[in-house]
């Protein structure tokens, strides 16, 4: 069975590894691009949120290349992501595609259902074999997140624009080819070193000299919001790259492994995760006292934690009409006012124009730079 799955940043590296390790033939959809977006926008519901439109584009691309089944995550609400798979199945069916949709629903308290689905996908391989595949995929995921973190450190101080990103690309490609746990770890160590070296940084973490031509060196901006929009550069118009190339260090609380942790693994298995989650919840409490689905509560809580870490500002990104993030975006200006922390909420979709976004980002970063210049002014405003 040839299977495919939707894109989200570099997640394809991990999912491909995992599924191939289970003995499946994998078709990776073309990376999201203008054309796949057009296909998605044409066939997806008009008022569906942006990630669904990109999903449809991915699926059509992969099905045209001969994929027969789609692996997709589910959910229990209230964020509409939980119903993506149902709507996508209907759209594809009406388009005349005959694809099986394998939906991995988040387990409630135990992993049995999820494991059974994965086993069925793999054609009934023994559980130990499945477990090994999962371990291997996880190993790669952790390395990939290390690469991304290294890149956010390297980009603001690189001498030659784009050199850190190039090193990151090379490292990611090598990670995709790594064929075992040990190879993965080796590639991981080397990759991180090379990304940092591309910007003249040492692994020890001593900050490099800010390079000339980067006017906003040493500004630190937290990036919060809906995970897909944070993790998929095509969807957020390469927000991280734009900021990094202005010299801004972008801090992200959420990486892909965090998404897997929250969505697919029950909290009881993760004491550390629970601690973190309750810290975020406590921080958000003065503004938002209840979970609202998706990453809404996290956006508020993480913003406040970023303020405590001394960030210069926070950028909040979400797809247009995203319900949980609308709640967050209603509260963030109030939190920002109380804390004296500039917050920029960006709701993006297929209509977002590059020039408009660039202008807003530049204006925001300019503001942060000036606030710094007047003496680290963090008074109330």
């Amino acid at each position: 069975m040839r299977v495919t799955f939707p894109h989200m940043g570099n997640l394809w590296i991990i999912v491909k590894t995992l599924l191939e390790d289970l003995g499946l033939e994998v078709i990776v959809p073309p990376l999201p691009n203008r054309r796949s977006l057009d296909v998605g926008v044409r066939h997806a519901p008009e008022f569906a949120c942006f990630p669904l439109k990109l999903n449809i584009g991915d699926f059509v691309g992969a099905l045209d290349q001969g994929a027969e089944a789609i692996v997709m995550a589910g959910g229990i609400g209230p964020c509409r992501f939980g119903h993506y798979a149902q709507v996508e199945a209907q759209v594809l069916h009406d388009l005349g595609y005959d694809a099986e949709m394998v939906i991995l629903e988040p387990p409630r308290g135990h992993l049995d259902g999820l494991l059974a689905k994965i086993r069925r996908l793999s054609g009934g391989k023994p559980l130990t074999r499945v477990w090994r595949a999962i371990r291997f995929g996880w190993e790669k995921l952790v390395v990939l997140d290390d690469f991304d973190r290294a890149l956010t450190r390297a980009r603001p101080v690189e001498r030659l624009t784009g050199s850190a990103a190039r090193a990151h690309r090379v490292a990611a490609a090598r990670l995709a080819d790594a064929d075992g746990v040990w190879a993965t770890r080796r590639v991981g160590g080397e990759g991180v070193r090379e990304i940092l070296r591309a910007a003249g940084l040492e692994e020890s973490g001593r900050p490099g000299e800010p390079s000339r031509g980067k006017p906003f060196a040493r500004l630190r901006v937290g990036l919060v919001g809906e995970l897909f929009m944070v993790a998929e550069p095509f969807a957020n118009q390469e927000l991280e790259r734009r900021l990094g190339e202005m010299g801004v260090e972008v801090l992200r609380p959420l990486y892909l492994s965090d998404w897997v942790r929250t969505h697919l693994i029950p909290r009881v298995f993760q004491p550390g995760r629970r601690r973190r989650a309750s810290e975020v919840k406590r921080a958000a409490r003065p503004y938002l006292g209840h979970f609202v689905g998706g990453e809404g509560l996290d956006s508020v809580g993480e913003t406040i934690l970023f303020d405590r870490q001394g960030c210069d500002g926070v950028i909040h990104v979400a797809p247009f009409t995203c319900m949980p993030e609308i709640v967050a975006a209603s509260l963030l200006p109030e939190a920002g006012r109380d804390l004296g922390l500039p917050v920029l909420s960006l709701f993006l979709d297929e209509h977002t124009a590059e020039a408009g976004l660039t202008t807003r980002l530049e204006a925001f970063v300019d503001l942060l730079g000036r606030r710094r210049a007047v003496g680290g002014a963090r008074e109330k405003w």
Partner: protein
Amino acid sequence: MAMAWQLRLKDGAVVGLPRALLFYELYPFWRGLLEGLGLRVAVSTATSPKLIEAGTRHAMDEACLPVKSFYGHVVVLRDRVDAVFLPRLVSLSPGTYTCPKMLGLPDMVRQNLRSLPPVIVADFDARLRRRSLEEGGESVACRLGRSRGQAREAVSRGLEALRSFRGSLEAGQSFEEAASGAAPGWKTPLEGWKTPLEGWQTPLAGGDPAPTRPGPRRLRVGLVGHAYNLFDPGVNLGLGRKLVALGCDLVTSEQLSEEEVQTESAALPKEIFWSSGRRILAAVTRFRRRELVDGFIHVVSFGCGPDSMVGEIAERETRRSSNLPYMALTIDEHTAEGGLLTRLEAFTDMLARRRARPEAPEGSVAAEVTT
């Protein structure tokens, strides 16, 4: 902002109920509960353009029209009452949610609207339990420092009113009739709604529409959507009245009983996790299968997340298994009455022609028009 847990309200204090969102599903319960706790209830005035404008000023742009209207209703109330009732409605039946915005609503209102009187907040969450209204109601009573006995009595009074309200709705009464019947003391009928509309919510007797007026059968439109969109003429620009004037009888998704919704919902491969979505989908399926209607109008707020998914499923299902027209009518604060009327006229004209020529070619008229 630490919230004082207890809120002291004397007997006879006036509590404001914003006439928006789930008010249209739970008003009789709220009234029964609050009056049972010795308070007086003030309902905000009918939704008007001015009120929506006031709400829009305080809410964020991306919020949907019903949320903006809710803000407006709180603005109307804030200087006139001793406390505002702002429950957090997480879930009204097991396994469902209302909507993320409703989960965050009390926080949004408290943060975005300044100088509010004290607010009564309590969580109503039936996700894992069955007794959301009971437990929520008791926690309201507890916050107000009332005794357990009084709490229980108030809750059962509210539930009793709610049951009678739902019964009247299912029997085809308008929201105003059902609400004033179930919760006497409804003193502020909406303008233009004082007389029950003929044709509004055709009674469904045993699943079949009771025979209506003599003469040729009128067109019957299945009007589906959230109760707060169907029942608030300030939000939907008098949609119901306009359709009746155009010669249609209406059947609404609010006429389905909870059991009917559950039955339809359980038949789906994956149950919808929004309670409103379950009801909308169940109504569309049932009206279609029983051949109760000539076409569907789904009233959607611009940017509504649940409806963007549920509406799509409903519309595709309808088109696949029948040739009934299905129109998604998107409304927001910019919707103009003239444009709306034109669309309704076009839609009802089409229905009338189809009926005159019953062998209409399959699927050729499925309407897919928005805004």
